[in-house]
């Protein structure tokens, strides 16, 4: 099946450097992301992949560099603004809301779109009730999309790991993002779970045209599904290009010797 045509550069990361008390996490990283593409960031553990994402959605503030999104340039991002601009994110080690069930977790991804004020909610008549229902339907479509109908009212803490990952993705999708940052979406999954997750990622990119930036360990997966790949090692960029280009890149090969999957 044909994938969406890849468009202009939408997210441009320039010369990002980040360090924690002298420890350099990222050094002068630059790369860009195009509309509708699937962009992978790979690299050994501690290469600074997660830190990169954390800079993009404002958890960390880089000491140097700038991030340009749809023409607007920032020297540091603010989580709220990032969310409003339509950048969503899933997490490496699950960051679900343990105390809530699947529906509420995904529903919480809709909070930016819910407008009724606190009094209306307290009375829960008219607008508030209608709003809840409208968004519940959206959430149900996501649940349907991710094929987790059987667990919609289960507290997420009770779900097996693989399903929690899906809920995490669901919460991000609920934001109807333009860019989706996936932090090791397939870490610690078995083959089937990985296949499912791949399918979902591709379907998201395919059906909603969402641009996807993903960090992944499993080289096989990355090479299969991504259009372009950035390779980090010890906080430095050592490769950038199509999977094939990267595969044949000397530095990458040496960095991955032994550690490659």
């Amino acid at each position, binding site marked *: 099946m044909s994938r969406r045509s890849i468009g202009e550069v939408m997210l441009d990361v320039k010369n990002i450097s980040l360090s924690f008390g002298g420890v350099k996490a990222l050094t002068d990283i630059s790369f860009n992301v195009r509309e509708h593409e699937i962009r992978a960031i790979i690299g050994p553990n501690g290469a600074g992949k997660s830190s990169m994402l954390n800079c993009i959605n404002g958890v960390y503030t880089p000491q140097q560099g700038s991030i340009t999104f749809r023409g607007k340039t920032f020297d540091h991002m603010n989580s709220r603004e990032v969310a409003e601009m339509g950048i969503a994110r899933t997490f490496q080690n699950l960051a679900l809301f343990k105390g*809530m069930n699947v529906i509420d977790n995904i529903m*919480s991804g809709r*909070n*930016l779109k819910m407008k*009724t004020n*606190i009094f209306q*909610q*307290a009375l*829960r008549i008219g607008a508030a009730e209608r709003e809840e*229902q409208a968004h519940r339907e959206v959430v149900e479509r996501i649940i349907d999309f991710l094929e987790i109908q059987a667990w919609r009212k289960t507290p997420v803490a009770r779900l097996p790991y693989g399903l929690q990952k899906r809920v995490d993705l669901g919460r991000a999708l609920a934001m109807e993002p333009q860019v989706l940052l996936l932090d090791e979406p397939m870490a610690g999954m078995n083959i089937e779970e990985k296949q499912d997750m791949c399918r979902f990622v591709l379907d998201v990119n395919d059906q909603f045209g969402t641009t996807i930036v993903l960090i992944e360990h499993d080289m096989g997966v990355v090479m299969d599904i991504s259009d372009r790949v950035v390779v980090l090692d010890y906080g430095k960029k050592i490769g950038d290009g199509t999977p094939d280009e990267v595969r044949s890149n000397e530095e990458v090969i040496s960095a991955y010797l032994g550690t490659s999957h």
Partner: protein
Amino acid sequence: MLYRENGQFKTSYQADQQIFPIAQDRYLILALIAAAAIVVPFIASEYVFRALLIPFLILSLAALGLNILVGYCGQISLGTGGFMAVGAYAAYNLLVRIEGMPAVVAILLGGVFAMAFGVVFGIPSLRIKGLYLAVATLAAQFFCDWAFLRIKWLTNDSASGSVSVPELMVFGWNVDTPIDKYLFCLGFVVIFALLAKNLVRGHTGREWMAIRDMDVAAALIGIRPVYAKLTAFAVSSFIVGVAGALWGFVHLGSWEPAAFNITRSFDLLFMVIIGGLGSIMGSFFGAAFIVIVPIVLDNLPNWFGIPIDTALASHLTFMIFGALIVFFLIVEPHGLARLWSVGKEKLRLWPFPH
């Protein structure tokens, strides 16, 4: 065992998202409220009203408020007594200083004052987390203790430092007999419980819980910690303030600052923990527990005809109470509400194991 859910299918989200989706639960709760409003007034004795029911209702309300802050938003507060005090004294001043101020309005406005106070002392929560915050909230407590003791104006310059409410007229209904007071409180509690439930199951509630469970992730999906935490503080201290006003007006009638000292704060915290963090129902369980246990412990010896002097009795009560709390934390950290829901699940799955 008692549940028969076949045929209770939902054809609309409204039906699916109602507070008690299972019919049997709906009937039960309605029956309870009806009984509380109609049956109890006929059977309960004056002592039961004064010593049990009225305190239970008001403390449930306070616990409910605190639970929103601690249980739903995860912000610990040891200053609840202070917030109650603000509610009580604000309401008192409004009542005595403004001519023809209706009691109910005074009580609600008391809540509003408490809310403002709560928000101010909630501001630190934006920077400080966890135990640091817990200790910080003590500042509110001690400030109130001091203010209502030393600032005479607040107590309408009463010599003794204790204030007393005249008679409580609510739109021509003179709330003076225990039954009246009980019904008056019941009304407040039912309404506030409903509103609170609506809030916590709405998106504000979800924002609170998101902050509680994983604040970083919450921020990344666009939840503003500032807004979430401060609304929690506001709503919480509003309800607590109203409870405080009721405590003063309805339960005590006349009181001193000591009525809202730090022990009150601790008791309320016990209620939400023992009752169950993050559960409206739990607030009621907790309140019931904290109200009943001491009374039982006090009377136990007499029931067995053991003579025991009051000082010793109170000390023993303290001991047993402390032991019970520890016991609970060890056996069921999620409180009575969890026991309740587990029991319910068991009934639903019966005869299958949970």
